[in-house]
């Protein structure tokens, strides 16, 4: 908008007004020089000649409600006065954005629709200051965001972004837990389909498999089970399906999905020990946080080797299992049932089952 344009529009003596129509269809009169501070309004006046009377009022975008328009006009009224110092402007701006979050968001949206970039920058900075340093729960609270990501999805950014050793251990724990959830899902499906099933409850089954302690985990698992059921079934199944496909590829490629299989291997290592010790007694919870770093490194390496060996042996073991093992009446029978139905999904799990299988066969 050039000086000449302004001169043409603005007659010398009178203060011209423009008519603006807000989202609720109400029309109001505003001093032209203030309204012109907004590029969109400016454009409408100059290029389309709108706004000179009530009949051809400038129709403002949907995001501009009367309240927002009044705020924006206050901002324009202050800033279009040329004589103000930077300090004054800054302090006005600071006070201007001290409004509640809901109005701040609305204001940002309205300013953006009017293309008033300085105000958009100001409000975005205020919103950024609100978000900065807060936990996700707090942010969700403030902005009323739905908490609709699955546990797995929430972990991905962490896993991808930081390699803090504590996070790695945490990830292993989470991966274990995830596997547990997956298993429960599978077990649930199998329960429905299989007629003759082991008569122990699913929880007992899982708790012995993982070799974990009774109470804290027990409570947690039941809670998680409930959560599972409430969460979107489709999403869970689709992610499982993805996981299964991935596992298939990995097994074929002799590749290891680093942390998850490490975790699986660790859990299996733990109950392998347990199998050697004394059958299926529950074992104290594998507490990642208390491993000392040197030992942790050692375990990592052992675990990786073990995983590699397991995965390379997989095809042969698969053959063996499929050709044998019909008559088991213990939990291994169920495992075989798994194998027949969900062979591809359970690779490391099954391979370790088969190991136990062999261990016991050897002993029998």
């Amino acid at each position, binding site marked *: 908008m050039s000086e000449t344009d302004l001169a043409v529009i603005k007659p010398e003596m009178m203060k011209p007004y423009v008519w603006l129509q807000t989202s609720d269809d109400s029309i109001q009169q505003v001093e032209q020089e203030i309204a012109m501070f907004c590029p969109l309004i400016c454009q409408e006046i100059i290029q389309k000649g709108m706004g000179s009377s009530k009949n051809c009022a400038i129709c403002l975008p949907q995001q501009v409600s009367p309240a927002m328009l009044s705020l924006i006009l206050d901002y324009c009224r202050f800033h279009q006065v040329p004589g103000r110092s930077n300090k004054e402007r800054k302090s006005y701006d600071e006070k201007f954005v001290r409004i509640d979050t809901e109005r701040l968001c609305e204001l940002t*949206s309205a300013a953006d629709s009017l293309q008033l970039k300085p105000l958009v920058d100001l409000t975005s900075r205020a919103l950024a200051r609100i978000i900065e340093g807060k936990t996700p729960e707090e942010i969700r609270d403030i902005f009323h965001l739905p908490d609709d990501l699955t546990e797995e999805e929430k972990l991905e950014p962490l896993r991808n972004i930081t390699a803090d050793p504590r996070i790695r251990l945490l990830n292993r724990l989470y991966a274990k837990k995830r596997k547990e959830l997956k298993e429960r899902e599978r077990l649930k499906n199998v329960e429905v389909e299989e007629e003759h099933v082991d008569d122990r409850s699913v929880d007992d089954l899982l708790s012995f498999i993982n070799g974990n302690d009774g109470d804290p985990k027990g409570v947690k698992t039941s809670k998680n089970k409930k959560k599972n059921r409430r969460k979107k079934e489709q999403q869970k199944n689709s992610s499982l399906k993805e996981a299964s496909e991935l596992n298939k590829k990995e097994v074929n490629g002799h590749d290891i999905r680093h942390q998850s299989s490490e975790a699986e291997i660790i859990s299996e290592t733990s109950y392998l020990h347990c199998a050697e010790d004394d059958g299926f007694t529950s074992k104290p919870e594998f507490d990642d946080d208390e491993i000392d770093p040197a030992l942790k490194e050692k375990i990592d390496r052992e675990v990786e080797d073990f995983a590699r060996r397991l995965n390379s042996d997989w095809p042969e073991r698969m053959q063996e299992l499929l050709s044998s093992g019909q008559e088991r009446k213990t939990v291994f029978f169920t495992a075989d049932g798994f194998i027949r139905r969900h062979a591809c999904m359970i690779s490391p799990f099954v391979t370790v089952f088969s190991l136990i299988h062999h261990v016991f066969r050897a002993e029998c």
Partner: protein
Amino acid sequence: MRRVIRMVDVMGPDLISDLPQSIIESILVKLPITDAVRTSILSSKWRYKWASITQLVFDDKCVPFSNDREIVERSVVKFITRALFLHQGPIHKFQISNSMLQSCPEIDQWILFLSRNDIKELVMEIGEGEFFRIPSSLFNCRKLTRLELSRCELDPPHSFKGFVCLRSLNLHQVLISPDAVESLISRCPLLESLSLSYFDNLALTISAPNLKYLYLEGEFKDICLEDTPLLVEISIAMYMTDDIAEHFEQSSNCNFLKFLGGVPNLEKLVGLIYFTKYLSIGIDSVHLPIMYHNLETIELHQVNFEDTKEILVILRMITSSPNLKELHISGSSNIPIAADAPDLDFWEKGCLSDSSLNRLKTVKLSEMGGWPHELEFIKYLLCRSPVLETLSIIPCVFDMGNNLKMLIELVKCRRASSRGEVIFIHE
């Protein structure tokens, strides 16, 4: 304790997730990078909002602190690599300002990645240590508008045609051959701001028709502003070495002309350390025709008032700038060696025109030792500045006795400005 059940109706509608991406970007870009990435776990809509922001800035706070530099370096490298890998879309600004990071091979990959993603502003300030060698993929960044590098080795290939969009170039402690620098500057036609610091023994000829801001600091043998008609602000700090001192002695050019001959639009001039000395060489041989009508601020530091040629530099500058508003001169803190009486005739000579400094409002003189030439200079200023408002004098702390003498002299001075205040700042 987290509530498992959330009743969305009670809380109200989502305030922010449905705002247009431009606003979300505007918000995310104002957050530190770790906070921006963390927004991916807020909700399903927010999962990848951060991944399309166009500015990535990695500073010292982007990974948790640890005393072991190698651990921090490893986590910074992993963080940056993974962030780039997860990122989608163009990246317009990429900045690494991390003092723990040192030269590592991943930097090459990052620059290659950025060159494929329309990078416009690239800032690399990594830690002390081995200088890393900028990969050739940098020279394929066609859209680069701002480049800031420190502590690296830059070696443009022969076929390099320049950065056609580059507006701002800042090289700090960069190993680059003088020819390469000159050709780099001359091949960036849109260059507006140039900053070169900590260069050794450089003789530089600058040819940049759009250049507005020039900042040089280092051991410069010679600076020639060949084609810089639009220069508005200059700030030069010239260090001295024996080589350069010799060079100065032997030089027969008029540096003043060579340097300030082609900058009629100059608005601000700042000269530090040996700059005034540099300008003083050859100054009495030539009479200056140029006037600097836009020059409003002059700052010359470490001026040796013993050397009348340096004083002449100041006077020439002042008298060629009819619109000068602010003058800041600081003396050198050397106690004069010359035992004989200073040549005060210099001040009587006709080389000083009677022009008055009609716009000069603020004068600040620091590191004043109270030496005769300094006092004459102050008198000169006071007599010729009708609108002077403030003349502040900050004495240097060597000799307190001199301060008293200075004050006595000052009180005697005739003043052209009725409103002028002479402020003597005494610790």
